[in-house]
């Protein structure tokens, strides 16, 4: 899906196109502060909606129930609130996607498209029965009033995806968010798509870059069947285990940071840069733990945990081949939903 940001069979309405151009120009003018472009995109999206839709998509910034209304499960099983993509017309759908693209980096947006594409594959594979899968079953919601200064939040998600982007001024805080993939590998028009392929390959590269002593520390002696801090486990931190990055050499630390970037880099580039700088400053206090075989292509769980970071990657047994069904979680136990940033 990389590079194909919008389906070819839609014509982009002029005002949405203009809004996108303005957003891009604003972003180009000030790459260090993406907030004005994101706010402009949000307002453009809201402008495409009628009153009834606006009342469905908008929530109070402090709506605690809506904030935690996300899951890895299909939306038919765990109902989401907000506006369903399938209930939007083409112009509204495109405006929603322009907003998402503004709030995310290009690779983050591509990843989202690929995860949604995977769900579309499940829909095709199930013959469209049950109505549990597909691009139309993803939801968008906005908590608070889009603002370049005051905190607000953009949520986008559905089956195997939950993005919680809290905007606090120029900062976009992505935690907690869930990315997942099933199938983790599929083909579209002859191209192989692996939504979480880099998360897999970079982790295997890292575990194999460790020496025997380091690997002994990193590899847990027990199986990990699922995410420990998945949906519904907000505010919890478990005791870290594995290999501390202070025991890694500079090259291994760089590989670890590159791997972390697969999650931290989903959000807009300037926010990702700030987040990565914070994570890098705490890298010596960050742990890498692994459970499972170390040969790429086999199912393995891993966890990266630092003072402001929790990442888990967990292959799922359901569906037969665990490498084809992955769940991941990305958290900052000190700043989930941007609470610390918003309180400043």
């Amino acid at each position, binding site marked *: 899906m990389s590079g194909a940001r919008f389906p070819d069979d839609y014509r982009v309405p002029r005002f949405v196109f203009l809004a996108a151009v303005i957003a891009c120009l604003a972003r180009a003018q000030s790459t260090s502060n993406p907030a004005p472009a994101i706010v402009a995109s949000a307002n453009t999206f809201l402008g495409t909606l009628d009153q009834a839709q606006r009342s469905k998509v908008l929530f109070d910034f402090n709506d605690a129930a809506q904030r935690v209304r996300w899951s890895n499960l299909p939306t038919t099983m765990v109902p989401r609130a907000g506006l369903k993509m399938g209930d939007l017309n083409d112009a509204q759908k495109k405006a929603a996607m322009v907003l998402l693209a503004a709030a995310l980096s290009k690779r983050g947006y591509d990843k989202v498209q690929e995860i949604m594409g995977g769900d579309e594959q499940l829909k095709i594979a199930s013959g469209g029965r049950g109505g549990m*899968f597909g691009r139309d079953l993803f939801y968008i919601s906005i908590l608070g009033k889009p603002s370049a200064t005051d905190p607000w939040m953009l949520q986008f998600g559905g089956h195997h995806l939950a993005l919680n982007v809290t905007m606090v001024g120029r900062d976009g805080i992505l935690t907690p968010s869930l990315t997942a993939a099933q199938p983790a590998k599929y083909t579209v028009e002859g191209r192989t798509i692996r939504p979480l392929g880099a998360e897999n390959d970079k982790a295997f590269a890292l575990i194999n870059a460790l020496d025997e002593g380091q690997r002994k520390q990193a590899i847990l002696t027990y199986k990990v069947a699922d995410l420990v801090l998945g949906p519904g486990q907000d505010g919890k931190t478990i005791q870290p285990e594995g290999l501390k990055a202070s025991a890694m050499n500079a090259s291994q630390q760089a590989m670890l940071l590159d791997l972390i970037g697969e999650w931290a880099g989903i959000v807009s580039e300037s926010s990702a840069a700030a987040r990565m700088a914070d994570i890098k400053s705490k890298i010596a206090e960050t742990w890498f733990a692994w459970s499972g075989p170390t040969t790429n292509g086999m199912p393995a769980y891993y966890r990266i945990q630092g003072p402001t970071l929790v990442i888990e990657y967990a292959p799922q047994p359901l569906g037969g081949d665990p490498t084809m069904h992955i769940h991941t979680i990305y958290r900052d136990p000190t700043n989930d939903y941007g609470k610390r940033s918003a309180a400043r």
Partner: protein
Amino acid sequence: MKRLAAGVILAICLARTAGAHRTDEYLQATLLEVTQHGVDVQIDLTPGVAVLPVLMTVIDQNDDGLISEKEQRAYADRVVSDLELFIDGKKTPLTLTERRFPSVEQMRVGLGVIRLKMQAMRVGHELRFENRHLPQVSVYLVNCLAARGDELTIGRQERDTAQRSIRFEYSFGKDAAAPSGVPWFPWEKFVLAGIAILLAGRMVFVRIRA
């Protein structure tokens, strides 16, 4: 009845389409929180759709397809009795403080999570926990929560391969300097005593030689 039938159809659909969650396993995820007052235990029990009939034979004693208050209590008590907690080697009773059961319909589609919370009031320095509940159909997670402040230090955690059991050492406050293998053995006093014995021995030896 219609809801039940819909749940069964959905469960079949899920199993066929390799949907979103586990089907043939009973996930038992335990979080342990060590405090200055004791140990809090939370266990989330998630039956896969294919495991539910097995689980219902355990829970639904009168076989009416429902989980009554009495059956909830009995099942929670059974889970608690299948858990073992040892503090400093002493078996420590767990008291059930909270139980939350989903509807049977939720469990039939693999969405139901039974949550039990327990408490043990004993404080100590070494914890061992084991979960022996329904091992034939279960997968386990067991983890220790990190302290909210810096006052708690937890030593190396040891688990069995299946995560049915965990053991670790811990300490609070000024004792919280990284628990080691035997962190509360008075090494400093032992070393000082050793040096004193050696010196005394040498003095005796020197006197005898003199």
